[in-house]
């Protein structure tokens, strides 16, 4: 994955847990890279290694870390690092979610080695949407859950994100139902 992803993990850990923890995680993962370059592509194993080391150093389950990382990505990294690109993608959450399928297509123009996820929307109603997530990578569905919750927080829209299909349980892909407003139970 591109350096900005690894850098985001670094930022998350340093801001929430301190620089010592980050050093410990990096040591644990056996990573010699001093500082990740945002626009350089790194092997996926580095990102996975960092998450795995973080579970040990921070004594947290991987799901907690990935979820937090999803939220953090939207609320912190993407927002901060890409100006208000996320906000510019929609005036409100539904508009943003509509735009999401396009998002990584354009990102891929910037990053030639990107192996971007694919999002598709279906069952678009006024207060809910079904989001389909396709990826070459494994085990990131909790990350997506965190991302979508982050988006809701970004637009200050109380929403419920619910995974309805699981690739790891044999489904074709992961599927999320996002509900807000009246659709909230």
């Amino acid at each position, binding site marked *: 994955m591109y350096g900005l992803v690894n850098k985001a993990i670094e930022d998350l850990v340093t801001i929430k847990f301190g620089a010592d923890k980050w050093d410990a995680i990096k040591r644990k993962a056996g990573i010699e890279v001093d*500082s990740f*370059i945002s626009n350089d592509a790194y092997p996926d194993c580095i990102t996975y290694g960092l998450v795995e080391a973080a579970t040990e150093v921070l004594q947290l389950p991987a799901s907690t870390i990935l979820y937090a990382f999803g939220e953090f990505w939207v609320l912190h990294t993407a927002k901060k690092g890409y100006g208000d690109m996320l906000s510019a993608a929609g*005036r409100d959450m539904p508009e943003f979610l509509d735009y999401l399928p396009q998002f990584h297509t*354009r990102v891929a123009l910037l990053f030639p080695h990107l192996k971007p996820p694919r999002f598709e929307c279906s069952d678009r109603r006024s207060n809910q949407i079904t989001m389909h997530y396709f990826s070459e990578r494994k085990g990131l569905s909790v990350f997506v859950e965190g991302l979508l919750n982050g988006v809701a927080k970004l637009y200050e829209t109380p929403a419920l994100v619910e995974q309805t299909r699981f690739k790891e349980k044999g489904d074709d892909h992961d599927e999320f139902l996002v509900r807000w407003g009246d659709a909230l139970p």
Partner: protein
Amino acid sequence: MLSANHLDSMFPFHFTVDGEMRIVSAGSALRRICPNVTDGAEFSRCFTFLRFGMLPTETFDGQYILKQRSTLFIFAATCSALVLRMQVLVLENPTRYCFIGSPWVRTPAEMRALNIVLNDFALHDATVDLLQLVQSTDRAIEDARRLTSKFEVQRNDLEQLIDTANAPIVGVDAAGCVLVWNQSMARITGIEKHDALKTHFASKHVSEACAQSVESMIASAVRGELTPVLEFELNTKCGDRRLVICSVSPRHDAAGGVVGAILVGQDITELGEYRSTLEQRVEQRTAQLSQANAELSRAMRSKDDFLSAMSHELRTPLTAVIGLSELLVEGVYGPLGTGQTKPIATIAESGQHLLSLINDLLDVAKIGAGKVELNWGDAEVREVCDASLRLVAQMAQKKHQVLSTRLDAAAPSIRVDERRLKQILVNLLSNAVKFTPDSGSITLETHADMDAGTLTFAVHDTGIGIADEDITRLFTPFTQLDSRLARQYAGTGLGLTLVMLLTEQHGGHVSVTSQVGKGSTFSAVLPWHPTAPRASSPASDEARADVKGATPPALSDTGPVIINADDSESCRMTIGDFLRGHGYRVVDAHNGAEAIAAVFEHHPVLVLMDLQMPQMDGLSAIRLLRSNAVSADLPLIALTSRRLADDRAQCLAAGADEFMSKPVNLPQLLATIGRLTGANSA
């Protein structure tokens, strides 16, 4: 032609004006953002035309548009901050000017402010992607800034480290000019950094003698080669030199290319000074040692001198004592009164004993000091044994002891120093005689061992025997001899030590077996290989055999003349009286010069020449005599109390026919004189 819907989806920010400059249509996104853009609205109320670099007098109308149709039109909305970048499309019948394009936004924030979202743009519009690109570039720039500041900190740390390091550090570029010059360098050389920078390091700061090697070290580091540690002298501001030891390594740029060299070193001037002090000290010590060595060898020499001097001093009076008492006994000075013969004989005997002790002492000391060199030759065993026996025969006879030999026929000869072997045997035999009671028997036996390659000379006696525990101590050097032993076997200590030393010097060993009250066997085991027997036999032994039982002759003032040159009165007297007693006319001389004068005056048949004499010593006299035709062939016997190996060789080289050491064995002297003069002595 595009339908209004198609146009809107492709160009959501477009608008069209007619010839009157009134809005006839507009894209949905534009309408939403600028509500005043409605059909029929005057263009000039909705937009301002931004005429960059255009003349202000010109008016924005159809004519102008047609004229400028190939340029980019920039419009600012009147109701918002929106700026549109547009291209005009001119349509005919009716005349329409259709402006197609999109808002000019540089950041997502501007977009937000304009209330535009990404979706407002047509899909083909690159504005969105450019915006993303700008973001990612910003991101990269931010990365760079972050890294730069991080590296700046590191660089500052490093620079401080280098600058304050307690080691001289110099960085040079590929041309060898100074780029880095730390405080330690400034301290050592007294040259400040700003003065050193950009100067050529090797030629400016390194001593002339070392500049070349430093230069080539830097050059090979720049070539990326491994360089060894280098020691060189740095020039200082005040003209001093400081010795440093440096490692030189290449300086790399980010791409890994070599751009110069870094020298990191240590000031070892003090170390160098310490080293040279050490060297000096070593030199001093060496000098002291060699001086000590010289002193030692001087001491050794003076010890030798002392030994020879002592032996001279001791022997000279002893010669007189022995010689005179022998002459008394022989009746040379007239018949002795009853009761006088025995005590005088005892005096002679004691003298002889004392003499042999001195000889032994001297020998032991010399062998101990490694001063004795063996004079190897083939000796006939029988002859040596007989001669040795003869020397103790008289003593044995007095005690009515029986002397016998049992010689191994397999070993007729042996390669030894004959004189020394005789010394060994005589010592063993005389000990045996001493410690064997009257009427006892003493046997000298030889036994060849072909396999071991040894010849054993064993002396058996029927003497008092020696206790086992004493045997082991018997051969230890005299200094360690038990006093009780020494007393009990008075006189043997040195003799046995000498026997042992001499035997060992021959490469052999000594052994002893004994039974108290029954007798002992002392053996000298010598290396041996069968050799051919010798033809001739030493004259001296024969002579001595001849002398045995000779009747004492009367004093003579006639007969063949012998010059007796000796500064010692007692020596002159002893020898002179003895020779006169044997029919020679003896003329005394006190030094070499007198001796020469006497030769020309008295025409002697032979000259006896003592070596150590005042005014002219014996050697010089001998040489002078030999250089003169008259005395060139005159028989000449050199005499000395010193017993240095050199003396003999020197004397013979100077021209003496024989060499005898004092105290002179008088019968032997007589025999030698006889031989040299070709006359029958006595």
